[in-house]
C-alpha cells in the first residue's frame, strides 16, 4: 500500500485484509487485562489466534501503523490511521499488541535515537519480541521526578549503575528497561541525567512486585546493583536525558488521557452499563452520567483537534498536560459512576459484574502516574498562562 493511495481505496483494501486475517476469536473488542497481548521474550500466547493475529499484523506493520516501514511500521498517514482505527473498531478487532515500547520508548527513539538505534530497537518492539518497562520514579523522586538518585559511574566503556526505581509497571515481566540515571552528580538536577537502555537479564537487576489496593501487582520495585551498561546504550546525549524524559512523558500523558476519554473502548462501557440499570439508577446518577458523557465527548474531540493541529503544524506545546489532567479526572468519575450503577454487585471481587471494583481502584492511579493532576495544573499555569513560579 502506498501513502499516496486514496482513502477509499485504502479502506477497501484494509477491510479485505482484516476479513481474511483477523481471527474470529480476536473480534470481541476485548479490553480486559487478560485479552491484552504484551509480547516479549517470555510471552505465553493465550491462544493460537492471539499468536496468529500478532504475527499477521506485525508482518504488515499494523502493530505500529504510523511508524516508518523500515522500523517495522506501516507508514500510515494520520488520515489512514483514522481509517485503520475505524475499521478495526468496526469488526471489534482486538489490538494485536500493547506495550510500553510502542507507547513510550518508540516515539522517544523515533525523535532522539540514531538511525542504528532505531534499526536495532524498533523492529523487535513492533514484532512484540522484546518487552520494555519504564524506570523513572524513585522513592525520593515522585512528583519531583528530576530528583533521581540512581547513579551511573563512568567506567570508560560502560556505566556502572546502582540504585532503585519504583512504580516500574510490569518490570517483573519485561526484558529491558529504559531508565533515568544520574551520570553527573555535580550538575543542577535536570542537567546530570542520562537516558539509558538496560538489559534486565544480564545480572544485577532485581524486581519485586508491589501489591496494590486493587489486589493486583502491576507495579514493581526495581533494584540495580553494579549493573554494567555499555556506552552505546544511551538515547540522546550524555546528561541530556531530561529532554528525552520530558518528550516521552508527553506521550505517556496522551496515552493515559486517551483512556480517560474512552477512546480506547472504555467509553462505550458507561452507556452500556448505565442502560442495564436505567430503571433503578435514579435521577441523580443519570444526571451525573449525562455530565460525564458530555465531558467525555468533548475531551475526545479535543484529542482529535490537537492531533489535527499537530498535523497542520500548529503545535499545542503543553497540551498534553491538560489532556492528561482532564482525561484522568474524567476516567475516575466514570468508574465511580460504574460502581454506583453496579450497586452491591460491584462490591465483590470478580463478582456478578466482573472485576469492576478492581478496575475502579486502578483508575485512582491515573491522576498520579505520569505526573499528578496537581503537577499538570502547575505546568499549565506556568507554561501556558505564564503565571509566576
Amino acid at each position, binding site marked *: 500500500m502506498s501513502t499516496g493511495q486514496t482513502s477509499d481505496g485504502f479502506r477497501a483494501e484494509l477491510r479485505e485484509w482484516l476479513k481474511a486475517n483477523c481471527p474470529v476469536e480476536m473480534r470481541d473488542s476485548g479490553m480486559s487485562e487478560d485479552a491484552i497481548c504484551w509480547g516479549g521474550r517470555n510471552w505465553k500466547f493465550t491462544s493460537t489466534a492471539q499468536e496468529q493475529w500478532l504475527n499477521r499484523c506485525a508482518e504488515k506493520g499494523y502493530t505500529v501503523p504510523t511508524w516508518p516501514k523500515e522500523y517495522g511500521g506501516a507508514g500510515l498517514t494520520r488520515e489512514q490511521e483514522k481509517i485503520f482505527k475505524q475499521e478495526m473498531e468496526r469488526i471489534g478487532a482486538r489490538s494485536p499488541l500493547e506495550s510500553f515500547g510502542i507507547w513510550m520508548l518508540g516515539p522517544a527513539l523515533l525523535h532522539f535515537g540514531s538511525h542504528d538505534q532505531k534499526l536495532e530497537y524498533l523492529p523487535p518492539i513492533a514484532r512484540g519480541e522484546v518487552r520494555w518497562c519504564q524506570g523513572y520514579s524513585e522513592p525520593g523522586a515522585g512528583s519531583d521526578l528530576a530528583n533521581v538518585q540512581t547513579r551511573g559511574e563512568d567506567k570508560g566503556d560502560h556505566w556502572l549503575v546502582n540504585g532503585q526505581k519504583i512504580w516500574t509497571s510490569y518490570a517483573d515481566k519485561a526484558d529491558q528497561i529504559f531508565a533515568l540515571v544520574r551520570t553527573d552528580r555535580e550538575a543542577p538536577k535536570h542537567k546530570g541525567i542520562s537516558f539509558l537502555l538496560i538489559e534486565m537479564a544480564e545480572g544485577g537487576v532485581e524486581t519485586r512486585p508491589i501489591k496494590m489496593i486493587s489486589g493486583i501487582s502491576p507495579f514493581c520495585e526495581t533494584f540495580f546493583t553494579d549493573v554494567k551498561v555499555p556506552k552505546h546504550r544511551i538515547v540522546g546525549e550524555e546528561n541530556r536525558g531530561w529532554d528525552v524524559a520530558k518528550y516521552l512523558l508527553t506521550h505517556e500523558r496522551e496515552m493515559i488521557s486517551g483512556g480517560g476519554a474512552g477512546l480506547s473502548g472504555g467509553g462505550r462501557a458507561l452507556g452500556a452499563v448505565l442502560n442495564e440499570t436505567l430503571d433503578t439508577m435514579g435521577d441523580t446518577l443519570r444526571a451525573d452520567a449525562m455530565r460525564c458523557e458530555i465531558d467525555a465527548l468533548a475531551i475526545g474531540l479535543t484529542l482529535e483537534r490537537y492531533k489535527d493541529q499537530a498535523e497542520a503544524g500548529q503545535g499545542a506545546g503543553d497540551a498534553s498536560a491538560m489532556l492528561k489532567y482532564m482525561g484522568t479526572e474524567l476516567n475516575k468519575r466514570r468508574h465511580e459512576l460504574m460502581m454506583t450503577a453496579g450497586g452491591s454487585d460491584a462490591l465483590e471481587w470478580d463478582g456478578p459484574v466482573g472485576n469492576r471494583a478492581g478496575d475502579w481502584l486502578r483508575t485512582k492511579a491515573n491522576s498520579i502516574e505520569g505526573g499528578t493532576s496537581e503537577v499538570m*495544573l502547575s505546568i499549565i499555569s506556568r507554561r501556558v498562562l505564564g503565571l509566576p513560579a
Partner: protein
Amino acid sequence: MSKLVLTEEETMLADMARGFLDGAAPLGKLRKMRDDGQRGDPALWKQMAEMGWAGVLVPEDAGGSDMGFTAANVIAQEMGKTLAVSPFISTAVMAATALRQVSDARAKQALARIASGEVTYALAVDEGVKHDPDATQMAARSDGNGFRLSGKKTFVVDGALADRLLVLARTADGLTLFDIPADRSGITRTASNMIDDRDAARIDFDDVEATGEDVLGQVDHAMDVLRPALQAGQAALAAEMTGLAAGAFGMTVGYLKERKQFGTEIGRFQALQHRAAHLWSETEVTASAILNAGRVLDETPGDATLAVSLAKARATATATLAVQEGVQMHGGIGMTDAYDMGFYMKRARVAAEWLGDYSYHAERVAALRGF
C-alpha cells in the same frame, strides 16, 4: 469531515473580526449603551452588514457572503469577547437559516434584505420560563384563507427592536412558523429590563391576522424550518459564550499577574494557579466542541443535534465557571459595577438560558447516546 483546525480563511476572518470589534464595539461600549438607555446599535449593525456579517449565511445570489456556519461561529465568538451588541444570532444566523430552508422568491427577497442589513428579525418561540418549542400553546386559528394568532410569547431576544418576527404557533395538526412584521395590528411588545442590558421582549398577540403568504415553510410542519434555525443559533450562541469565557478568563489571568497582596503577585499562589489552570483546561475542551459543531453544521446539517447540543451544554458550563471564577479571583473589585467582569457574568447568565439551558441540551445528548 474537515479537520478540527481553523482554515487560513477562517483564521483571517477571526483576526479581522477582532480588529473591527476592538475599534467599533470594544468592551465598555455595552456599559455606555446601558448608561444611555440604549438596547441596540443600528449603526453598528449597518457596519457589520457592510462587512458581510449580516449575510454570512445568505447565498451569494441573494447578496450574501455565504461563508458558512463555522464562519458564523468565528464571528459570534469574537463578539462574545467584547460583549458586542447586535442582532447577529437572531437575524443573520437563525432567521437566515430558517429562510434558507424555503426556496421561493419571497424567501430569497427576505434573505437579501437580511444581508443588506435592512431588516432585523427576532424569534418568538418561548412561552414559559424554559425553552421548549414542542410545548407551544399559542394558537393560530384558521380563518378563511388565513389565520388568527392569539397568545403570549416571552424572552423574545432582540424582540423589542426587531423589524420582523418569526412566530411559532399551534395549528390544526401541528406547529406552524409565521414570518410577520413586528408592527402588525394586534401585536403589543413590552421591552423586558434584562440583566444583560440587551434587547428582549414579552409580546402579546391579540387576534393578529396572518395570511397563507406569511407562513414560512409548510403549515403544521414548522420544525422542518425552525429546527435547523435553532440549531444554527444554538451553535453560534455557544460560540459567543466561548468567546465570553475567553474574555473573562483573559481579564482574570491579567489580574492575577498584576494584583499584589502579602507583598507579591497573587498569581504566585498555587491555590489560584490551579484554579486558573483548571478553568483554562475547560475552555480548551469546550473550544473543540464549538469547532466540531460548526464543521458538522457545514457538512452534515441534517445530523447536527448531538454536535450542537454538546457545544451548547459545554459552553454553558464553561462560561458559567469562567465568570464565577472571574469574580471570585478579582475579589471585591469584581463585584463593583465600575469593573467590567460583572457584564460578562450577566451576559453569561442570559446566554445560558437562551435557546435551551444545560439540562435541555444534556437531555438531548443523553437521548442520542442511548440513555
